[in-house]
């Protein structure tokens, strides 16, 4: 990696396209060493095997100075990652330090539906942090093992891109006027149970979802999480989505999917991705759904809002 490319104030969001663990180590260690030399706060969110690679490659004192997060846990649902960076940035700013993050949301082994939400997350990072405090986030993408389309989307979602050879303005950068939640989700592949509901049906919706989840043989924790998600999302549709909504249930391979749709438009694309203040009124439901469920996809436009909750069986 070269030192070229701009490093002005503000949020610097960089994709790092590499091939395999060798290039990964080279590039990420370079960034970490630079951060250590500058006395920055370092936070690394990677899946466990890559955390181990990085830790082992740093001298013990340096490794101890880094906060290591397992991306496959804290970012299992990509919709949770933004709150992780928000908290890291708040902590660094409060300590009067500059944050340098390394985060690999689109790690190898992710399902297609998860990779799509990683892309939404990357775009929302721009929305969330542009114009805020100065910090940088390096996002590794393993182009030897990820689908080419995922790497192309990464170039479009990051204003800066780098390889081990060069660094600069991303050739594919789509600009920050893209609405991250626009777009559609793939249609369900097979049979779908559908229903519509209004204010008087919320208990019935919740019970339908929980008995469906139980009948699929989901574990108790996940049935409870889905029931709570259904209650909060159906209530959101009634409150903010025009008073009524639709619910659809289907199974697609290892995925049990519950989807809520309504006619409303989500005014705040960051809804559910900020941790609510303790005891905060309102705005808690979607955050909770992101935290409790395996994968949550939100799409919202003038045509309406869709929240698709996937549980891996």
């Amino acid at each position, binding site marked *: 990696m070269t030192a070229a490319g701009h490093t002005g104030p503000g949020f610097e969001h960089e994709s790092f396209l590499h091939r395999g663990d060798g290039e990964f180590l080279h590039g990420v260690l370079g960034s970490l060493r630079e951060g250590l030399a500058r006395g920055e706060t370092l936070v690394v969110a990677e899946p466990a095997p890559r955390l181990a690679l990085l830790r082992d490659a740093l001298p013990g004192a340096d490794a101890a100075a880094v906060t290591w997060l397992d991306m496959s846990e804290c970012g299992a649902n990509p919709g949770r990652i933004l709150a992780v960076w928000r908290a890291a940035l708040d902590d660094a700013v409060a300590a009067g330090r500059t944050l340098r993050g390394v985060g690999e949301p689109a790690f190898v082994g992710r399902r297609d539906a998860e990779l799509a939400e990683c892309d939404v997350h990357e775009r929302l990072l721009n929305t969330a942090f542009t114009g805020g405090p100065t910090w940088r986030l390096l996002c590794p993408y393993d182009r030897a093992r990820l689908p080419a389309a995922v790497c192309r989307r990464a170039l479009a979602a990051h204003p800066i891109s780098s390889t081990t050879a060069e660094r600069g303005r991303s050739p594919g950068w789509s600009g920050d006027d893209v609405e991250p939640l626009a777009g559609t989700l793939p249609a369900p592949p097979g049979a779908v149970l559908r229903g519509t509901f209004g204010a008087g049906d919320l*208990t019935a919706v919740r019970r339908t979802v929980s008995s469906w989840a139980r009948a699929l043989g989901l574990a108790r924790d996940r049935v409870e999480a889905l029931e709570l998600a259904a209650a909060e999302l159906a209530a959101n549709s009634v409150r903010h989505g025009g008073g009524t909504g639709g619910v659809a249930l289907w199974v697609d391979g290892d995925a049990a999917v519950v989807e809520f749709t309504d006619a409303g438009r989500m005014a705040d694309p960051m809804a559910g991705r900020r941790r609510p203040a303790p005891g905060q009124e309102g705005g808690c439901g979607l*955050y909770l759904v992101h*935290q409790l469920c395996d994968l949550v996809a939100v799409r919202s436009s003038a045509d309406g809002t869709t929240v698709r909750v996937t549980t891996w069986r």
Partner: protein
Amino acid sequence: MRIHGLLPELRPATRTDHVCWVYDDPAAFGEIARRYLTEGLAAGERLLCVGDAVLEGVRTSGGPLADVGGLQARGALQVLDVRAAYGAGGAFYPDQQLAFYDAATRKARADGFTGLRVVAELSDLAADPGRRADLLRWEHLADDFIGHGSGMVALCAYRHDLDGEALTDVTTVHPLVHSGDGGPPFRIWFDGDVLTLAGALDTFGAQRLRAILDSCPAAGRRVVADLSAVDFVDVGGCRELARWAARLEARSGSLELRGAARVVRRMWALLGFDQVCDVTFAEAAA
């Protein structure tokens, strides 16, 4: 463990029964009251009828209760009209009610009866929006009294044609409920010193939950609430529990939540309720 649940039919009372009986047909209710009181008479309890409808149903149904005058003469049966019992449309003080029933229960025992068995028809109180909050508080206090094995048992009767909110209010604060529908969304009662909740604690019942928890007589001490029979809690329900905990703390009390589902404890931590109040979570009692 106190017996609780929906009551399709009247069954023999245990010594801590507090039944809410919702009825359509006065004649059918008269028969229920007669059976309930006859059982108490056989058990050596003093009977107390509150509300003219009760006595009317009993008087006309024959059997061991037909001689109302004789029973009254030997103190086995007492009658109060609701206006006398609950104030003539004026102030209604739950604490005075408790003092009255406490004294009446003690007196029954002192007079050689095994306890006090009450049938009260309180529809008119429930129908009055201005007095309903006090009625709820009273039912709650009465339940605490009954649940502690005071020697009083009670069947509280309400007409089914009361408005839905009123019926839900009164059924919610009884451990045993007979109603035509599936019962209220949640119920709250005392099991000894433990406040026990059952059903769904959600946003739609949040206001009712707050009102009932606010009238909970268990203040200023360590309160234990058992959620083992609660089958669902949403953010709104959780928030009410947290608010209640904060209010108890402000009055030097504390709250222990027993038997909460794991998802409730996760929600509690995720939404930071553990930072706004100090609640101890514990496993359900064995």
